[in-house]
């Protein structure tokens, strides 16, 4: 227990701090409330809100439109945003002034934000660096883009329900591949895999829900399709794009090291990372396709369930729970018999075969048929052979059961072999060879109600003894009879 706690405190500390790093610039920046700038002239503005808006703008430009941002474009966005979202009237000069100030702050005057923490393993203070906006110069123009940490921070600030988590994770992956962070990319793909598995689980639950309660099931189905599946095509597109990016990264790596007779260790490490990332992405894509198959199945099932429900809704129905409440309220169990007896079907006993009626009506009597003698003796009840047999079996079973009860009154537990021996001693050695003796135990073992029914009218309830029958643990050919 203490060891686990110690591990959490010491060994995991660095990882926790590195996870916190992406949040650090936000809180650092929001300390600034504009009161120090131009004598508090822009105090009305809110740095937290503005920062989030800028991040979203950069994601839109970098990851959706796939282009970097120039400073004039940033200014355009700021002018629109400041005028639309704050009550303060700002002229062009003021917009420019405040936008410059904010941009400097967000870029931390060109330096990365430095997040300091204590590393308990090395027992040293460490500083981890993080940027929000990165820049590069191309064709004499400075182009700005959002950093991977900033994307991660932005995505982490809200549980994304109305957007595809897979798509946003893929945007992050894209960023990581383009900044050659293949190891980090593999972590992101693992997240994508989790999300795909999560969607698969959700779809299974929707299927289960549909089978239990249609209304609730359809509701969760629609919710699932709205939140989970509407982005499917977009996700597919991003998967393809990232696969292409990985291929490009591989080509770039090879071209960078072309001509080198002795490849460096870094080359092989990067190559391994790229391949691993590619493999992970392929697994994710396969799972994503499997998800589509499962969702298609679910769509069909839902359509069918709705169709069936529509047809059923045309029929009136008897609600069993409501009827039960009414019956309990009336407190007359006789009503129950009216509800149950007819559904038991019809009792099938020996009876006149109706087909014979047809034959009787159509048959021509023979002219030479001898008249039947009229007998005045009372007709006796006909007893069929099988009824005679049943009577014999009943007698024998009753005899055996009574013997079993007698034995149970003497001993609470004994084996069938012991019972056999005592029966042979008491009556005859051949008794255990009797067919009824054998079937008695077969019926007792099968417990299909036949024995109970046969003996109910023969043995009074008070005479009966409850007992169990189980296979002997010592001898698999023997049974143990035990009084309950």
């Amino acid at each position, binding site marked *: 227990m203490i060891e686990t706690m110690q591990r959490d405190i010491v060994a995991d500390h660095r990882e926790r701090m590195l996870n916190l790093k992406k949040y650090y610039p936000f809180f650092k920046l929001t300390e600034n409330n504009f009161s120090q700038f131009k004598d508090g002239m822009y105090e009305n503005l809110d740095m937290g809100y503005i920062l989030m808006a800028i991040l979203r703008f950069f994601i839109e430009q970098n990851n959706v439109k796939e282009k970097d941002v120039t400073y004039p474009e940033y200014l355009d966005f700021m002018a629109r945003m400041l005028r639309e979202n704050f009550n303060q009237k700002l002229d062009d000069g003021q917009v420019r002034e405040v936008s410059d100030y904010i941009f400097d702050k967000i870029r931390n005057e060109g330096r990365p934000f430095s997040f300091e923490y204590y590393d308990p393993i090395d027992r040293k203070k460490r500083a981890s660096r993080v940027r929000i906006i990165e820049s590069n110069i191309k064709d004499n123009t400075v182009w700005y883009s959002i950093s991977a940490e900033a994307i991660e921070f932005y995505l982490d600030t809200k549980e994304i329900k109305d957007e595809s988590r897979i798509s946003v994770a893929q945007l992050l992956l894209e960023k990581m591949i383009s900044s050659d962070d293949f190891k980090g990319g593999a972590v992101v793909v693992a997240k994508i895999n989790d999300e795909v598995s999560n969607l698969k689980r959700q779809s299974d639950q929707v299927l289960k829900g549909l089978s239990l309660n249609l209304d609730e099931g359809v509701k969760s189905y629609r919710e699932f399709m709205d939140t989970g599946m509407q982005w499917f095509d977009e996700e597919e597109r991003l998967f393809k794009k990232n696969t292409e990016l990985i291929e490009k990264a591989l080509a770039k790596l090879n071209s960078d090291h072309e001509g080198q007779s002795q490849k460096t260790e870094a080359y092989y490490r990067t190559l391994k990372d790229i391949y691993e990332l590619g493999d992970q992405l392929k697994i994710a894509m396969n799972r994503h396709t499997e998800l589509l198959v499962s969702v298609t199945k679910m769509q069909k099932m839902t359509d069918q369930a709705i169709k069936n429900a529509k047809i059923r809704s045309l*029929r009136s129905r008897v609600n069993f729970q409501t*009827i039960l409440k*009414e*019956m309990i309220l009336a*407190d007359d169990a006789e009503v129950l018999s009216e509800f149950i007896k007819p559904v*038991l079907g019809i009792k099938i006993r020996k009876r006149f075969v109706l087909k014979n009626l047809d034959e009787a009506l159509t048959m021509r009597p023979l002219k030479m048929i001898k008249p039947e003698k009229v007998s005045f003796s009372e007709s006796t009840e006909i007893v069929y052979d099988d009824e005679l047999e049943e009577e014999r079996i009943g007698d024998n079973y009753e005899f055996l059961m009574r013997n079993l009860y007698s034995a149970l009154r003497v001993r609470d537990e004994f084996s069938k072999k012991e019972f056999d021996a005592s029966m042979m001693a008491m009556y005859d050695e051949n008794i255990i060879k009797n067919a009824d003796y054998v079937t008695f135990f077969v019926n007792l073992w099968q417990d299909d*109600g036949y024995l109970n029914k046969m003996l*109910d009218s023969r043995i009074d309830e008070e005479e009966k003894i409850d007992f169990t029958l189980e296979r002997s643990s010592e001898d698999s050919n023997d049974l143990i009879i035990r009084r309950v």
Partner: protein
Amino acid sequence: MENRNLEKALDIVSLLVSGQDVGETSANSALYQEYSNNSEVYAIVQETLRHLELEIYEYKNSLYTAGKAGNTVFGFTNEEVKKALGVKLNKELYLAYFIIYNIIMQFYTDSSTPAYVEYVKIDDIVNSMDTNINGIIDDEMGIVLDEIEENSFRQIALSWEELPASSSNSIDNTRAARKSKAGFVKTVINFLEENDLLIGNDARYYPTDRFRSMIENYYEDNRSRLAQLLKGKKEQEK
């Protein structure tokens, strides 16, 4: 009327009242085809069964019959059900009916909405009984034993609550007996299996097509009569 059609119709009736299958996939599929496609055969079967006071239900291309209310020739009487179940007292009979009603509720929420439950186990039914019995007796108010009539729901509740849950440690090995809840449920299940309403496999009990045809048709067809019956009882109570 063609003699041939009469013969076929009577063959169908004969098979139905002797409990045999008449359906598209049964051994008597040719007769089922006649019933479905030959209007004269259909009419004779309907008319004959009407005179025998039997209902005919079609379910998944098979035919099933049930006795109309009060049909003592083909339908079960309470005494016959008691004998078939192996019980002697009315309170035990009503308890058995209540268990059957609970089994129906496991598979159907209403007469036309199957619950998509594939099978039930004995403990499912014992639990459902416990839940539905729970509301019958007001434990706070207590009961006056002398006032309880034999055919009341309160008596059913008392009979059920008097029973121990099970006389063996494992519900799966439950033997049909009247001395425990699980044992009593098993007795009822055995009876339903004999009447081709449930099929048991490895302590799981599945409804048969016969069972489904009865539930989905009988209550709907007799809706107004059953409602009248309940209403009558309520008015008597007042």
